[in-house]
C-alpha cells in the first residue's frame, strides 16, 4: 500500500520559486489502477517521481508498505527500485547499444543475478509478445515494440507497483490501445499501476482518476 501525505515540491528560490506540488495527499491500495490527469505543468511527473523515489519532496511524506521512503538515503532507494517499484516512461528509455533482451535483463544484472536469468528475460518478452525480437537493437524496433521492451524491463523484477508516465503518449491510437491492453492484463495479474495520461478514454479504464491542477489535486473520480 502507498500513502502520500501532504507532499509539496518547490523548485528554485526567491522570485524564481516554482511550486510544482502543493500539499498533495493520496492513497493507493495494492493492485489498484490509478490514472493521473491534468494539464502540462500541473505536477503529474513530479508526483510520480516522488512516489517512486526518483526525486525528493520538499515537505510531506511518502509511505510505501508502512515504511517512509521520502527521507531514505540514495542507497536505500536503490533497493526499492530493485524490488517494489518499476518505471515506464513516455520515451521507452532503452540503452541503444543493447539488444531487447539485454535491456530487459538490465535490472537483474544490477541486482547481481546470474545463470538462468536470460530464460526469465525471454519469458517476459514472450508475455509482451516480443520473444521473436529478443536479439534486435532498439533502433530495429517500432515505437510500440520499444515501449513493450521497456514494460518487459519494468516487469523483470516482479514489482508490486508500476509507475507509468504517459506510456502511450508517443503512439498512434491503435498501438496505444495495445499497450493499454497489456497494462490492464498486468493489473489483473496483481501489479498496482499508477499511470499519467492525457487520454480520457485510457483514464476511464483506471479504478480511480486523480486530476491535478497547479500542483493541487483538483478532483478525484472513481470510475467504478
Amino acid at each position, binding site marked *: 500500500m502507498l500513502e502520500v501525505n501532504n507532499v509539496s515540491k518547490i523548485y528554485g528560490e526567491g522570485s524564481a520559486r516554482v511550486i510544482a506540488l502543493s500539499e498533495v495527499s493520496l492513497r493507493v491500495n495494492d493492485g489498484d489502477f490509478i490514472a493521473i490527469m491534468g494539464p502540462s505543468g500541473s505536477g503529474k511527473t513530479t508526483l510520480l*517521481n516522488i512516489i517512486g523515489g*526518483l*526525486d525528493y519532496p520538499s515537505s510531506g511524506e511518502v509511505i510505501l508498505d508502512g515504511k517512509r521512503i521520502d527521507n531514505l538515503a*540514495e*542507497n536505500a532507494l*536503490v533497493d526499492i*527500485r*530493485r524490488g517494489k517499484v518499476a*518505471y515506464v*516512461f513516455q520515451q521507452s*528509455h*532503452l*540503452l541503444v547499444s543493447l539488444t531487447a533482451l539485454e535491456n530487459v535483463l*538490465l*535490472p537483474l544484472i*544490477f*541486482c547481481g543475478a546470474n545463470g538462468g536469468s536470460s530464460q526469465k528475460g525471454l519469458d517476459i518478452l514472450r508475455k509482451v509478445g516480443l520473444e521473436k525480437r529478443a536479439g534486435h537493437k532498439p533502433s530495429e524496433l517500432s515505437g510500440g515494440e520499444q515501449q513493450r521492451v521497456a514494460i518487459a*524491463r519494468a516487469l523483470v*523484477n516482479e514489482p508490486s507497483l508500476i509507475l507509468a508516465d504517459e506510456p502511450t503518449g508517443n503512439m498512434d491510437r491503435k498501438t496505444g490501445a495495445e499497450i493499454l491492453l497489456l497494462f490492464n492484463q498486468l493489473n489483473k495479474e496483481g501489479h498496482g499501476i499508477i499511470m499519467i495520461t492525457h487520454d480520457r478514454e485510457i483514464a476511464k479504464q483506471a479504478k480511480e482518476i486523480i486530476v491535478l491542477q497547479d500542483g493541487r489535486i483538483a478532483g478525484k473520480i472513481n470510475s467504478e
Partner: protein
Amino acid sequence: MLFAALGVAIGTMTVVGVLTIALAGQARIYNELEKYGANLAVTPAINNVDTHLGDLSMGTLAVGENYIPQETLPQIRQIADGEIREARGITDPGDIATIAPELYINTTVKGSSVMVVGVEPDAESKIKTWWNVQEGEYLEGTDRALVGAVAAKLLTLNTGDAIDLNGSAITVTGILVETGSNDDYQIFVPLETLQRAYGKEGLVSSVNIRALCNACPVEIIANAINQNITGVRAIAVKQVAEAEMGIMGRMNRFMWALGGITLVVGLFGVINTMMSSVNERIKDIGIMRAAGASRNQIMRIFIYEAVIIGIMGGIFGYLAGTLLAYIVGPLVFEGIDINFVLQYLPLSLALAILVAAIAAVYPALRATRIRVADAFRSL
C-alpha cells in the same frame, strides 16, 4: 572514449619515447667509452714556474722535458698491476694491464706536415681494438709504417712506397681503415725506429694504459703513479666517463620531468574527455539508475571503462613512444640504436591505467550524484 584513449596514449607515448631515447643514449655512451680503449693516460708533467724580479712578473717558464723516460715503464706496470691484483685478489704474477707507450714526432712527409707516432705494435693493437688494416699488413719488424686512411689519401701513399723520416728510409706496409679519430691523419711506425731516426732513444711522449676492465680501480692507479713517479701525470679516463655519466643522469632526470609534465597535461585532457563522455551519457546513467543500478555500480562501469581506455592507451602509447624515439632519438644522440624496451611495456600500461583511473574518478563521482529525475529532465 576514443579521444580519452588518445589522450592517455599521447601522455604515455612521451614518457616511453623519452625513456627509450635516454636508455639508448646511455648505451651509446657506454659503448663509446668501451671503444675509447685506454682507461688511464700518462703524460709528462709540465711544471710551470712563475718567475719574478722583485715585484715584477717575468712570465711563466715551462720546466722539465716533454717526454717520459722509457725506464719508468716497468715502474708504471708494477704500480698498475699491483693495484689491480690488490683490488681483484689476483695472485698470478704475469702482466695484467696493457701498457702502450707512444712517441709523437711532428715532421714533413712529401711536403706535408704530418704526425708520426712511434708505437709498440702488440700493445697498440690491444688498446686500439677497433683498428683494421684495409691494405697490406699490420706493423711487424722495423723500418715499416702503418698509415692512417686520410693521411694515405692526402699523401697518396700506397703499400710499398718509401717515405723518408729524418734520413731513415721507411717502407709503407699497411694502410688503416678509416676510424673517425685522429689516427686517420697519422703515420704509425715502430717505437724504436722513430726513436732512432730522431735521436729520442729511451723517450716516449705518453703512455696509454688499458686496465683489465671498466670496473678497475683506475683512480687509485692514477694516484699511485702520480705519487710515486716524478715528472709524469696520470689521468684516469674514468673521470671523463663519470663526468659524462653525470651529464647523462641530469639529462635522464630532465627527461623524466618532461615526461611527467606531459603526463599531467595529458591527465587534464583525459579528465576533460571523460567529463564530456559522462555528460553525453547522463540519460543512460538515468536509465541504469531507474533500472536499479546503485551509485557504486555506475562508478564501477566508469572505472572499468577507464581501465579499458588505460590498456588501449598504454599499448598504443608504448608503440607510438618507441616510434617517436626511433624518429627523434637520432637527432639527440648521433648513431643511436633504438629498440623496443620490453620492460617499458608494463610501465607504460601501469602509467596509462593509473592516469585513466585518476581521470575517471571525478567525472564518475559526479555522474553518480545526478538524480534520476534530473537525468531525464535535462533532455
